[in-house]
């Protein structure tokens, strides 16, 4: 058992690549600013009703602003999550014709956007005051910074890529590695030693689970130190969900290794299984834009469960109890995949 473990640990390059590849993806995508679209999202809390309507309408006309109306608690929560750059509070006492001031809460981590938003708001108010006859007094905008967690694309991407690389390692690592050992006669050479086949499988699984843990650790640390990843979850939960996912995909890898005789047979099968998941499980792009029935299908992908689970833990600090649907989904997949693997797997 220990001896078989060593076989894998001595494949230094392989280990290096399993760790480096997902990092490479993160570096590649991390520097692309998908979320820097140049619009300022403003939450408007209108407690003044019709009196403030012309003002709100005018704000909506401004193309640089994305205006969302809501109640006070809701909008401030969104500001806290980083979903708004600023939130303007229009109190019930608001009267556009009399001298008044407005308070806006702004996102402290996005000073530029907040400043721009404040400037535009002030201008819209000034214009409205000016158009009145007689011209009304100027309404002054006060701003107050609020601490926010600004989730960015990297926060979405990193747990996804992490999940994807767990899938790749399971399906491709096991299937290719095993078929190659089989084809090159290395397995036969091992069978004439007293090493037990079960130990060999166990070592394969143990080795890859250790790699999964290293992967999670490295990716999260790199994310936090180099990309301002807003990691608030627990490593323990991440390890647990990651391993559950890994077992699902390892089993798939063993099933593939069982039915394939050469690398040429493994490659298309492995791709048919992994590509749709890679593209549709919400790894690189949110699933919210998928058409209804595709969305429903992808709900049941094992990678969707894994990615949603990992993301929930890492970014929203979800507890395992909150992730019951994901854990249940992975658990069912785990049973199915292991059953199929046991049925399909062949040594020769």
């Amino acid at each position, binding site marked *: 058992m*220990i*001896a*078989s473990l*060593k*076989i894998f640990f*001595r*494949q*230094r*390059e*392989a280990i290096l690549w399993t760790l480096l590849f997902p990092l490479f993806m993160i570096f590649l995508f991390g520097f692309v600013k998908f979320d820097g679209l140049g619009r300022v999202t403003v939450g408007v809390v209108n407690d003044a009703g019709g009196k403030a309507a012309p003002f709100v309408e005018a704000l909506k006309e401004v193309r640089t602003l994305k205006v969302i109306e809501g109640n006070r608690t809701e909008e401030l929560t969104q500001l806290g999550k980083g979903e708004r750059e600023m939130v303007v509070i229009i109190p019930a006492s608001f009267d556009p014709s009399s001298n008044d001031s407005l308070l806006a809460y702004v996102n402290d981590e996005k000073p530029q956007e907040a400043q721009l938003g404040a400037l535009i708001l002030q201008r819209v108010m000034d214009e409205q005051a000016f158009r009145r006859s007689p011209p009304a007094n100027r309404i002054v905008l006060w701003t107050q910074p609020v601490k926010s967690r600004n989730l960015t694309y990297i926060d979405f991407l990193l747990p996804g890529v992490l999940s994807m690389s767990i899938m790749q390692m399971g399906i491709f690592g096991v299937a290719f590695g095993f078929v190659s050992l089989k084809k*090159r*006669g*290395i397995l*036969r*050479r*091992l*069978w*004439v*030693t*007293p*090493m037990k086949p079960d130990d060999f499988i166990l070592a394969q699984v143990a080795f890859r689970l250790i790699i999964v843990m290293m992967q999670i650790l490295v990716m999260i640390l790199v994310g936090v130190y180099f990309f301002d990843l807003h990691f608030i979850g627990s490593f323990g939960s991440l390890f647990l969900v990651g391993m559950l996912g890994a077992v699902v995909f390892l089993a798939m890898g063993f099933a593939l290794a069982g039915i394939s005789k050469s690398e040429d047979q493994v490659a298309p099968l492995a791709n048919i299984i992994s590509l749709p998941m890679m593209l549709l499980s919400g790894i690189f792009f949110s699933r919210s834009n998928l058409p209804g029935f595709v969305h429903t299908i992808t709900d049941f992908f094992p990678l969707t469960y894994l990615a949603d689970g990992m993301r929930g833990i890492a970014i929203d600090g979800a507890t395992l109890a909150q992730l019951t649907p994901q854990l249940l989904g992975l658990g069912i997949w785990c049973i199915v995949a292991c059953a199929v693997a046991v049925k399909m797997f062949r040594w020769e």
Partner: protein
Amino acid sequence: MTDTILEVRNLVKRYGDLVAVDGVTFSVAKQEIFGILGPNGAGKTSTLEMIETLRPIDGGEVRLNDIEVRTHAQEVKRLIGVQLQSSSFFDKLNLSELLLLFGEMYGRQVDPLQLLKEVELEDKAKAQVVHLSGGQKQRFSIAAALVNEPLVIFLDEPTTGLDPQSRRHLWGVIKRIRSEGKTVVITTHYMEEAEELCDRVAIMDQGKIIALDQPQELVRQLLSRGFSKNRVERLASLEDVFLDLTGHSLRDE
């Protein structure tokens, strides 16, 4: 017979309708070099693989050091060293590391340098298998088969594809292993190799042993049946010419 180490009786292997090994019987004495000869598809490798515990035995019995192979495969594995016809080794590990690893599979601490010295590869201890020549690879395979100090070592066509120099060198290695008290079972296509190396040979064809004796005895029997070559016996062969011109020294290192 007390000095019999390997006993094969009525061994049978079927692949579907094809009977690849058809009631093979022979025994090998301790410290013997025993050759199994035969054309491709004669059943040599299947016979060997059943003895080596790699293939299920469909019929008959194999006893190694008086242990039944079919029922005690795990014990037998500890007693044998095997060089397979076409097996490679893990990449990225050098020869020393590979030997240590194989040692660990037997739960043994081995001395890689000593093993490599046995097959004259001690200067390649830090090299990887992919960088070895054909002859060196085969010698390394033998070193790997020796990690558990086996009683019997099985060599499946160890010299196929080697140049005459490397083949002769490998013969030297095999003879030395025997002189250290081990028993060797070898398959080959080369008759002069069997003649040079083997104490006794079994000739197989279509799954059956059709002759079994000492090489000189088989030749004598043939001649006694009135056989004569239709060419005049020469005192030297083309291989002798080749070796005379190119020398006996190894070229692959």
